[in-house]
């Protein structure tokens, strides 16, 4: 009887994925699931309806981290304000910085917007560069390759499965990118402003120029002086689109829209935001809203 019980317990744990992977944000989680498939179970720490810089380090996140075999973080300073005490108090040696089960994705990304000088006088600047790289649909390819390598390192037994999943996914994603590129051709030379520099990677990829931000400095709430300057910029450059994320206040953007005739469009910063429930939906959502 005991043996049967043990066997079923073992079996059920296998069925739900024996490798536990925690990711800080949803996009990373979705890519991990593509590669890990049934071999892993993924749990995402931060809800994508909130500002990724200001996630509340709830104790429930500690119990997620406690049992993780692998933690995949975005890096580039994005988790600086909430993740370190969680890693410290989850009492899990596997996911400490430097351990085998700790993966900082930013180490594999060519980060843009690196500031020449770093001081908090310039607001909440990241010395490592702009950490919001997951808005670039090409970065998904890098994420997939890096995660495949890491999963095979942690769980060599299933490395063939991870490799097969990766190959399949790369083909699928490259096809998707072609479709997306065709879609994006329709909105070449678009001019935009944004709230926070959240979408620079996507904009750079498709040659869309951003003329400014609603916040005067990163992490600083809008000021009337800066808003007036931005209104003038929008008028002078005939900008038609204001990119707004899901979590900042929307009053300032609406005010600017009213003064300039530009349109406010809500763009997801991470999978899950703005009703996007898959990777493709996430990037389609950006593309559709941006190009309208």
């Amino acid at each position, binding site marked *: 009887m005991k043996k049967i019980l043990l066997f079923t317990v073992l079996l059920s744990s296998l069925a739900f994925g024996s490798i536990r992977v925690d990711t800080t944000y949803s996009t990373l989680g979705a890519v991990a699931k593509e590669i890990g498939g049934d071999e892993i179970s993924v749990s995402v720490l931060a809800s994508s309806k909130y500002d990724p810089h200001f996630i509340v380090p709830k104790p429930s996140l500690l119990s997620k981290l406690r049992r993780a075999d692998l933690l995949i973080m975005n890096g580039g300073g994005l988790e600086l304000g909430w993740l370190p005490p969680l890693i410290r108090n989850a009492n899990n040696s596997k996911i400490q910085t430097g351990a085998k089960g700790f993966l900082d994705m930013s180490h594999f990304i060519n980060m843009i917007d690196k500031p020449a000088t770093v001081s908090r006088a310039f607001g909440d600047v990241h010395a490592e560069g702009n950490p919001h790289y997951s808005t670039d649909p090409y970065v998904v390819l890098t994420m997939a390759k890096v995660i495949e390598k890491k999963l095979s390192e942690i769980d060599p037994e299933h490395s063939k499965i991870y490799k097969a999943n990766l190959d399949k996914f790369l083909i699928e994603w490259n096809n998707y990118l072609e479709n997306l590129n065709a879609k994006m051709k329709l909105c070449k030379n678009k001019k935009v402003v944004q709230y926070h520099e959240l979408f620079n990677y996507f904009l750079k990829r498709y040659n869309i120029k951003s003329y400014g931000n609603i916040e005067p400095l990163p992490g600083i709430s809008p000021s009337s002086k800066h808003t007036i300057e931005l209104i003038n910029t929008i008028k002078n450059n005939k900008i038609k689109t204001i990119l707004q994320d899901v*979590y900042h206040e929307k009053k300032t953007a609406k005010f600017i829209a009213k003064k300039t005739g530009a349109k406010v469009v809500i763009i997801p910063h991470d999978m899950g935001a703005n009703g996007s429930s898959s990777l493709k939906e996430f990037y389609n959502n950006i593309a559709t809203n941006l190009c309208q």
Partner: protein
Amino acid sequence: MKKNICLSLLVASSLFADTAIDEIKAQLEQQQKIITQLKAKLDMLSKKSEQQENVQIVQNQNKSSSFSQNAYLPDIALILNMSAVSRDVANDDYEKYNIPGFIDNKNTQNTPIPFNKNRGFNLNYAEVAMHSTVDPYFEAFANFHLHTDKFEIGEAFVQTRSLPYGLLVKAGKFKSNFGRINSKHQHSWHFDSQPIIYEALFGPDAISDAGVQVQYVAPTDTYIMIGAEALQGTNKRSFGEESGNNLYVGYIKTSIDIGDDLSVLGGVSVAHGKNTTKNTTDVYGTDLTFRYQLGSYSSLSWQSEYLYRTKNIGTTTNRQDGLYSELIYQYNNNISTGIRYDAIMKNDTDLQTGYAGIKTNNLERYTTMVEYKPFPMSRLRLSYTYDKTKVMNLQRKDIQEVMLSLNIAAGAHGAHSY
């Protein structure tokens, strides 16, 4: 057939031979000239590129100095806390206040008031906080409190980072994880003053002592943490027996989420030690925190704690209890406001001399505050306090206080835990 063709070709070529030879000679001379010119060019260019390579190599070598350890410097932060206070009690009276029934009798023991003592201006402290990963096995933390005339090691401890089975061990001088607010630093409290029951039972530093801590996080979907601590027990208000270490603390904490937005954290704690009369002191605590996220920058949180102490002083056992309950509304990333009620309810007198004629129970205080954070690193807070917990010159005295405090955390200051 092939032979015939070859032969005829030979004959034909010999017919044109003389003129062709001269032409070829001229061409050859020209080609040789071009070759020498190209060679000269190549030499020049390769010399140049060699020089460039040399320059690059030198620059790369100079990028790091041989024994630089800058990358290993600990995170260092400077925390400054200061205030302007208006109070309806003169400073020399206020300095001698007592919380009736407790050992911090300022007339006999002269315990200094650590924060916001003066009517007028106060520089409460400059704190230097450091943190560093020591090696793959340990992390080290230290907080140095610098007062105008005093240096104090607030905390200095190491903790493990690679123990198996969900264990963590901490050793050194540290703030105990007893209760909810005990382990928090003053600058991360929502009100500038310490809850009165904590001040009465443990004093301004709360339970903070040299010792060892072991914590275990259960591998469950629900957060469950169990901790045990052995501490020196130097705090004379509740403990302080000096023949050896005398204080043991244990607690269990758990938390659940209801949806994405509501989280609940609760815990029970016990501190068991020996007091200066060599008899037993037990402190029981229970705490409960609700936090509801209204958005990325907006939340409502309600935090309460109740503490109960029995202190055997040989002839008799004194019982005291008290609580605080605070409600904080964070409107956006700049503005938040809050209200707190704290009190000591039951209060058997603790002092041998007693407080003849003075009621020592039902000591209450009401505090309200509004704070403005221009940036996460700086905070201005305006608070009003109505305080019915103090005795001055052997009389209960109600105190009203308005305070504007400023706190900054500059440099590499780590994130606060929940």
